[in-house]
């Protein structure tokens, strides 16, 4: 029989490196790292990816009192003012904006900043449906009670960042060319005077028309009288044939 039947353990733990619990993140054995990588959580994928499904349009029709107020304001604007011009607005320095507003205010034109999402439903319900395509991207409204288009165009020409897109003058929708033509039109008094002159042209011509028949005859007779008078200075003859025909 052997002296002492002892046995060696099958597993020998290696007493090297740090303990099990450390303050720092202890480096894992590579096999353990591989095991951790293999046994990670894999989330379940839906049968149809969410991209293919129709997007849930969350139409938040938050009936804000604020939104209603803004809509009312826009409707008022459209009702009260004769001239409404829509312009594209690129970002301008603040002082330029103030200067422009000042110039336009002198001519009694107001500058209004409006949000497209408020203006579009208002327009689609009113009769200004053709103004809808204008209200895309950043824009401003120039509104006034009188139609001072020439001054407005002058001011806008001085400001390069604002481009006129279209206008609604006296409920007539005009494009940019239409606005320019409208500006080139003479003012009301001048056009009135023009019409009066055009109307008065015909009666002024009636007297000349009536006289047209006898005008060559009178001219001829006058010539004759002059010849006779010129002949009379040489020999005094009677102007009787001129008197009898006159």
């Amino acid at each position, binding site marked *: 029989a052997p002296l002492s039947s002892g046995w060696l353990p099958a597993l020998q733990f290696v007493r090297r490196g740090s303990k099990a619990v*450390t*303050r720092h993140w202890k480096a*894992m*054995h590579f*096999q*353990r790292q591989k*095991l*951790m990588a293999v*046994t990670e959580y894999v*989330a379940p994928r839906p049968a149809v990816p969410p991209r293919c499904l129709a997007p849930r349009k969350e139409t938040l029709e938050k009936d804000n009192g604020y939104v209603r107020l803004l809509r009312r304001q826009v409707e008022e604007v459209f009702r009260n003012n004769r001239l409404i011009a829509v312009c594209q607005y690129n970002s301008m320095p603040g002082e330029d904006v103030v200067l422009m507003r000042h110039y336009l205010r002198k001519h009694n034109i107001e500058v209004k900043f409006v949000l497209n999402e408020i203006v579009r439903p208002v327009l689609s319900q009113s009769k200004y449906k053709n103004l809808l395509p204008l209200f895309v991207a950043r824009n401003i409204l120039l509104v006034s009670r009188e139609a001072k288009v020439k001054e407005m165009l002058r001011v806008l020409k001085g400001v390069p960042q604002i481009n006129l897109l279209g206008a609604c003058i006296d409920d007539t929708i005009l494009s940019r060319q239409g606005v320019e033509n409208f500006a080139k039109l003479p003012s009301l008094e001048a056009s009135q005077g023009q019409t009066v002159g055009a109307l008065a042209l015909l009666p002024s011509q009636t007297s000349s028309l009536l006289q047209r028949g006898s005008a060559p005859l009178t001219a001829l007779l006058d010539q004759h009288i002059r010849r006779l008078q010129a002949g009379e200075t040489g020999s005094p003859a009677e102007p009787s044939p001129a008197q009898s025909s006159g």
Partner: protein
Amino acid sequence: AGIIFPERTKLKFMDKVPAVPKVRREPRRLRDIRGPSQVATDFTQGQYGIMALGGGYLHWGHFEMIRLTIGRSMDPKTMFAIWRVPAPYKPVTRKSLGHRMGGGKGPIDHYVTAVKSGCLVVEVGGRCEFGEVKPFLTQVARKLPFPAVAVSRDGLQQMRQEEEEKKLNNQNPWTFERVVTANMLGMRKYLSPYDLRLKGRYWGKFFLKHRV
């Protein structure tokens, strides 16, 4: 709805050294940091609390910080707070600075409490909402030596539910638990016997939240 206010609504003062200081120096026993907590895992009196998501030691400085911050930010008339963690009991030795190794174990420097992951540190309750309590609880949780979160009863329940759901709907057929219990590919040679219980969610004092 049936909230019982304790006598003192503010947190009790925790002393640095226990009433009977220890004479015998104790071994380090870092296993009191490792793994999930069996103590103080659920709410008792309060509705909101700070849960530890990692292991660590809390010393007197931490206790004072918690006590003062919570005492400052809460309303003692409507809210109350209680400790879920005992006062420092474990002695930690330190050798004096600048000496070489050797010469025996150092003297006791201070006392700490061991906190495992999943343990609640403080509980807050009363007539208040989670929204009121959350800011200062997160402020405290950030300052603790281990990662911690402010939780409510519902939040904790939801966390546990989510964990179980993750376990159920995991598409990966290979889980740590399965590999370890069956000792697939001789993996147990590279793993600790504690991994049978810890199942790959704990590594040292850290709690790996993202693992199943």
